[in-house]
């Protein structure tokens, strides 16, 4: 009889618990995804067949109809443009602010930090009407730039806070060495600091992209014709059959997944150093 040492027993138990938790967490994410993917390509007859749980014949018809008959490809493009614009604007504004918070001591610094966060205290519903009027006056209504600017206001606080904590993790000496060896402050930022914080920027970019990609309310209020994907889908698929809804879910999920997949490789340690 082989005996199991008591220590070994708890070790096995511990492993079991960890694996069980891992399975639960992954199913929590993967099962809905699988459901969406399967149903999006299901033949409607099979989908509605009460005797089947999982459809076995698949078709591109649902996605095809949604993308090209209902012209959702345009909304998808709009969403991508808005998300990228949002990243561009919020980085252009957020990086300098994050840098200043990380590197300098100035009067009102803590107050400034608090103000940044308090921006998120106002529910969008309250601001929707004034924002629409403002946009109409500025000629930004129903433009992608307008939506991007509104999304920037949502993403900016996080971009500032995330990037400032990344900048803190870059030793000042790297920048000082840059300036000693012939760079201006500006060049130092672009040639020394920026390459070092790429992983952190990737994280901030993912966050901003996903936020903009998922945002429905502002996009619905501010646009009519040039709608982003979620806002457009909301209207066009509301009364459509279920497979269409799943197809819509599929085209919502896919680009975001691709983007995260690409940005992900910058998240892990680069240059052998791990920056937060």
């Amino acid at each position, binding site marked *: 009889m082989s005996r199991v040492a008591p220590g070994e027993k708890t070790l096995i138990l511990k492993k079991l618990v960890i694996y069980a938790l891992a399975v639960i967490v992954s199913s929590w994410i993967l099962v809905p995804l699988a459901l969406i993917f399967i149903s999006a390509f299901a033949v409607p007859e099979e989908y509605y067949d009460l005797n089947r749980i999982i459809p076995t014949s698949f078709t591109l018809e649902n996605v095809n109809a949604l993308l090209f008959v209902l012209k959702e490809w345009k909304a998808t493009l709009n969403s991508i443009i808005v998300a990228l614009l949002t990243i561009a604007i919020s980085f252009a504004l957020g990086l300098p602010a994050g840098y200043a918070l990380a590197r300098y001591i100035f009067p009102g610094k803590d107050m400034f930090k608090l103000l940044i966060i308090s921006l998120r205290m106002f529910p969008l519903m309250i601001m929707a009407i004034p924002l629409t009027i403002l946009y109409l006056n500025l000629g930004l209504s129903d433009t992608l730039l307008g939506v991007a600017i509104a999304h920037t206001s949502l993403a900016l606080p996080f971009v500032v806070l995330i990037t400032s904590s990344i900048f803190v993790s870059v030793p000042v000496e*790297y920048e*000082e*060495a840059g*300036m000693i*060896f012939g760079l201006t402050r500006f060049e130092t930022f672009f040639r*020394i600091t920026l390459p070092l914080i790429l992983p952190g920027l990737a994280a901030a970019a993912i966050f901003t992209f996903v936020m903009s990609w998922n945002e429905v309310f502002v996009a619905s209020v501010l646009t009519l014709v040039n709608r982003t994907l979620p806002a457009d889908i909301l209207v066009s698929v509301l009364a459509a059959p279920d497979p269409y809804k799943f197809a819509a879910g599929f085209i919502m999920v896919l680009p975001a997944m691709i983007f995260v997949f690409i940005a992900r490789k910058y998240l892990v340690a680069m*240059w*052998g*150093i791990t920056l937060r």
Partner: protein
Amino acid sequence: MGYNLKVKFMVEVKLVDLTKRFGKVVAVDHINLTIHDGEFLVFLGPSGCGKTTTLRCIAGLEIPEEGHVYFGEEDVTFLPPRERNISMVFQSYAVWPHMTVFDNIAFPLKIKKYPEKDIKKRVEWAANLLRISELLDRYPHQLSGGQRQRVAVARAIVVEPRVLLMDEPLSNLDALLRVLMRSELKKLQKRIKVTTIYVTHDQVEAMTMADRVAVMNEGRLMQVGTPEEIYNKPGILFVAGFIGSPRMNFFEATFTGEALDAGDFKVNILHEYRAMLEKYEGKTLTVGIRPEHVYIPERSPTGVPQQELEGVVDFVEPLGSDTIIHVKIGNKLLLAKIPGTVKVDYGSRIKILVDLTHLHVFEKETTKAIF
């Protein structure tokens, strides 16, 4: 390597009334100092004494509130670092992690738009000098601390700087490597003859490497001199106490006209020194004597006037080659450094001899040295 570095920009660095404040704290307090062409000057002092801030003012990383920094005739006080044509080795090395060793060393040359062929030649020259030639295509995270330090030095010398600045470059290395790099840096500096300003809190580093040492405390320059001068003729109490290990013995004594009376014992003053003390008769002075100038009778040098004192051995610290004994005379404690071969017992009565030619006497109020 046949490549020969021509040093075009040797330069004298002059600090005039240099003052830097951080809020209410005066980090650097009216420093006046000239660092000669090709000299190896070490700023030495305890942490927070302003030595690094002084260096950063010379580098242009800090702008002083008052005073000026001159390189030769040129006032560089307000010049940004990149226009000063200097190099710096940082305490943390600051070797950029996203560049290979080659790119790190080549970086200053690329910025200054050297031709590609020249860059390669120079990087190879510097890498060869610091024996890191085989590491050129590695990334910094693949290097040890000592190797990274060499990369930082190579990057600093590759550009022919007017002035080479070093901010505690050896303090992150282990003890053995530090001793090795100490002599290597010194040799390197003598070879390329660049004006070098080096900051450290380690007196051994300062003594072994410097042409001249500038001792700083609380933002002020205490004394500037060769290591020998700093050690043998400290101009002020702080320097006497800061340089030397174990620390110099200090006691307060009153000058009686012939001797210094410390209460528990008296120390005679040699005739040639009495004249200097004349005006202090009856006053309290601070007297210093280094432990290495306190002998025991069987190992005392001959022909040197000495004062015999008697006390009790309070503590013994064997260091191998030497032994430090703590001798209590009344309420006073005198340390003596004696050869490690001599056996001394705790609590035993012992005779010690104070070398009268190596006494240091300081004014009590100003702490300035009388001799």
